[in-house]
């Protein structure tokens, strides 16, 4: 798992994980594609140790390991839908399949929407699974976010904090 998780203990028993987890997904060197990771980093400074904050840069299917044993999970990823850059989408994956128009799927590779559906088919989804998607444009090489996407980070972080206090 190419992840880092705040508060995890890497070693003999593997990471020790909390029942509530926030997982930012993306590629740290592909511009706006990193927005999920940036939200995770932002939240790490705002949240107590009872909530696990992880950054997932590997294949989406690795999420099935990261959510194992969790009760509540909030996933944050870059999205590519019809909306403007920076637009925020929220999905309750517990209730059903998440928006394929925003997280497009295919039969070739395992994206976020597919990883969630495989988790559902195998009975491995946490009782509460929420997904935030932030619309991005073309992902450049590098680690900078565009202004429009960067502007959405604070709002998504605030909304996720709100989810956790419910």
């Amino acid at each position, binding site marked *: *798992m190419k992840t880092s998780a705040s508060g995890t203990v*890497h070693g003999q028993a593997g990471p020790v994980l909390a029942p509530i987890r926030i997982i930012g997904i993306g*590629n*740290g060197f*592909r511009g706006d594609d990193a927005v999920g990771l940036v939200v995770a980093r932002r939240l790490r400074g705002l949240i107590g140790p009872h909530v696990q904050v992880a950054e997932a840069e*590997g294949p989406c299917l690795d999420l099935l390991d990261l959510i194992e044993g969790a009760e509540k999970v909030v996933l944050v990823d*870059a999205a590519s839908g019809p909306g403007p850059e920076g637009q925020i989408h929220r999905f309750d994956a517990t209730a059903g399949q998440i928006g394929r128009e925003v997280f497009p799927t295919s039969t070739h590779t395992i994206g976020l929407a597919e990883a969630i559906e495989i988790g559902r*088919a195998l009975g491995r989804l946490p009782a509460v699974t929420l997904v935030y998607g932030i619309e991005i444009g073309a*992902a450049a*090489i590098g680690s900078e976010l565009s202004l429009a996407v960067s502007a959405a980070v604070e709002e998504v972080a605030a909304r996720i904090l709100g989810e956790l206090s419910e």
Partner: protein
Amino acid sequence: MPGTADANQPNKERTIAVNLIARVEGEGALRVTVEGGQVKDVELRIFEPPRYFEAFLRGRDYREVPDIVARICGICPIAYQMSAVHAIEQIFGVRVEGSLRELRRLIYCGEWVESHALHIYLLQAPDFFGYESGIAMAKDHPELVSRGLQIKKAGNRIMSLLGGRSVHPVSVQVGGFSRVPSRDELNSLADELRRARDAAQDAVRWVSRFEFPDFTQDYQTVALRPADEYPFNEGPIASSGGLEIPAPSFEERFREQQVPYSNALHCTLDGRPYLAGALARVNLNVDRLSPLAKQALAETGLTLPLRNPFHGIVARAVEVLYALEEALRIINQYEPPPAPSVLVTVRAGTGMACTEAPRGILYHRYQVDAGGTIQEAKIVPPTSQNQRRIEEDLRAFLPRILDRSDQEAALECEKVIRCYDPCISCATHFLRLEVERR
């Protein structure tokens, strides 16, 4: 796109397009033109992120390279790191031996297990069962998909412990690692690896019973072939045609060519397309497999050399078993090295290396100045090397499916392409299929 050609009227020109569009990059397609019932053109375009990374690497300190190249591919970060550190170590005259070398083999085992298990169980097996996706297969056969995920997780555990990206406390660097694991840390993986190894034996039996299309090709196969081990990090480049050259001489015999329909470069060996990856490795290194892997391969009843691209799934399953056995051997014999990294003295020069990524040989070349700054980087990924070969396979395969509708033909083409496990969406995760007639 709606068109006017009719699949039942083979004399008209007909175009079958399979658009492979990564979510972010939006490039890549297969275009097949059929005229008078004959396949006229087969043009495959696959987006290649390394081209952009080559420019991004210039001006960076050599110590940043492993972290940067680890982001080129979401599936095979270790392969990119390994080719990079070996090339840079060649410049600095550094040899990484003993336990550090073993740890590099171990982390590579983790990547092969992870990458191959994903491809076998969730990307390619659905093709053999008539499922449109891994999700559909998971619904009907949760026990099979769970077994695949169990094997994959064992690979993940190795990579998680030894680190693949900078955010991790342990990571790959020029000269070795930032930190090395203790014996206890490695031993903690053993039980899970043994369970995965048992599951991997079942997996070889399972895939070898699939119904394979009767489709054999005359392949020129290429893989590293070290003297006394199955290849990961080192070894001369060998081919089924008798080639044997040191890996740094790659560019003397392998040529990249620009083709007009693609921004990606096509690679040939002495002017001919070639096959790299699991099938090529098994063909060229069968005598270097571990005892269980050798036995499992023999029990499949397949005759070597493998010449059917659909047998690639068997080769991958055999390699998963090999990698788990090899990982257990390394863990069992492990003695922590005196230092996590050997001393590196920076000097100017050019270095080249090839390692065996899950999809085939991955070549890197770097030029650094006396201060350790990258002046030039060149990366030749396995998918680009296999592109011409995939086109040749499609050219040979298409006549048997020309009577199908464009949509069905496109799906069959995809199955052929999928045999190669091409890395088509490195940054993110999406492809789209489109059928075009004109």
